[in-house]
């Protein structure tokens, strides 16, 4: 395709987008208004199930099925990465030499590790009460573990991070979400319905029915998935080398 033709296609696409975008804009609600029909309904539904964080109520109660889809996307993409980045026959594992870490880096990384870990667990545990939740907290927990790679070296990280356990945790988190959904079905209403257990007291850890439980399973799945994902990338970047002479 010549450059001229490509520019023409780009121009047609850009003009079409501009026309549709301009046509859509007048129908949008005004920026930053105080009333929003969907927002009001979502807040009412969240309060009815005694969930303080409305976003968590939307994610794990009103739109729990969407979250299952999102969780499965992460699960499937990590599975795909594991398959693609596996050690092939032409590659061999070379244990990396211990790295010299400057003392300040080591000190701050090891100091921050427990703090980041606790923050991550806090964000997971309080998903139904304050901003955050399983996804955000899970990523924080997983990246916090990797401060060990910065503060010490790859072998120290490998010692506290048996990848097999995290692979099982990833699958268990995904499975537990499905089981909780089926529990709703067994309890007599519908898949992922928030009717299995009581709603608890508003604004306490035990509130929102199955919202905190689903939140925990997502936290477990995301933390394990990110650890497995980073492990595969780290293996490729640090350990695995192509066999020479082929």
């Amino acid at each position, binding site marked *: 395709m010549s450059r001229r033709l490509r520019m023409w296609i780009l121009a047609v696409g850009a003009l079409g987008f501009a026309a549709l975008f301009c046509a859509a804009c007048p129908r949008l609600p005004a920026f930053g208004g105080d009333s929003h029909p969907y927002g009001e309904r979502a807040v009412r539904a969240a309060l009815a199930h005694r969930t303080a*964080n409305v976003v968590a109520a939307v994610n794990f109660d009103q739109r729990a099925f969407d979250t299952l889809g999102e969780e499965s996307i992460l699960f499937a993409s990590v599975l795909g990465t594991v398959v693609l980045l596996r050690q092939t026959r032409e590659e061999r594992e070379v244990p990396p030499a211990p790295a010299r870490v400057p003392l300040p880096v080591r000190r701050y990384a090891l100091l921050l590790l427990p703090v980041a870990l606790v923050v991550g667990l806090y964000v997971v545990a309080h998903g139904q009460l304050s*901003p955050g939740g399983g996804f955000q907290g899970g*990523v*924080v927990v997983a990246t916090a573990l*990797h401060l060990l790679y910065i503060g010490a070296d790859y072998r120290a990280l490998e010692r506290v991070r048996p990848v097999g356990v995290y692979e099982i945790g990833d699958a268990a988190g995904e499975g537990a979400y499905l089981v909780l959904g089926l529990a709703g079905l067994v309890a007599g209403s519908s898949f992922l319905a928030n009717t299995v257990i009581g709603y608890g007291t508003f604004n306490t850890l035990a509130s929102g029915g199955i919202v905190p439980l689903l939140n925990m399973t997502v936290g477990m799945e995301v933390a394990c998935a*990110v650890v497995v994902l980073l492990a595969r*990338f780290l293996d*490729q*970047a640090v350990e695995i080398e192509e066999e020479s002479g082929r």
Partner: protein
Amino acid sequence: MTDTLLLISLCAVAATATAAVLVRDPARQALVLSVLGLALAVLFTVLQAPDVALSQLAVGSALTPLLILLSVRKVRRRGRREEDGR
């Protein structure tokens, strides 16, 4: 006050996003991407979406740059080996 904050954070997002496109070295790009993630997190916080801001901070500022840096390291290592082999 809120409008000023909003304007500042929008400009920061635009500036860092442009910088992320203009920087051509992938390793530097990862660092600029991390700053862009931070600017986006600030913008989401100003727009009262702390949940999204947290996700952005965790994924955009920490995870994505890390994955890019690891990929760059792998590619560079392979390049170095091929040069040695010649």
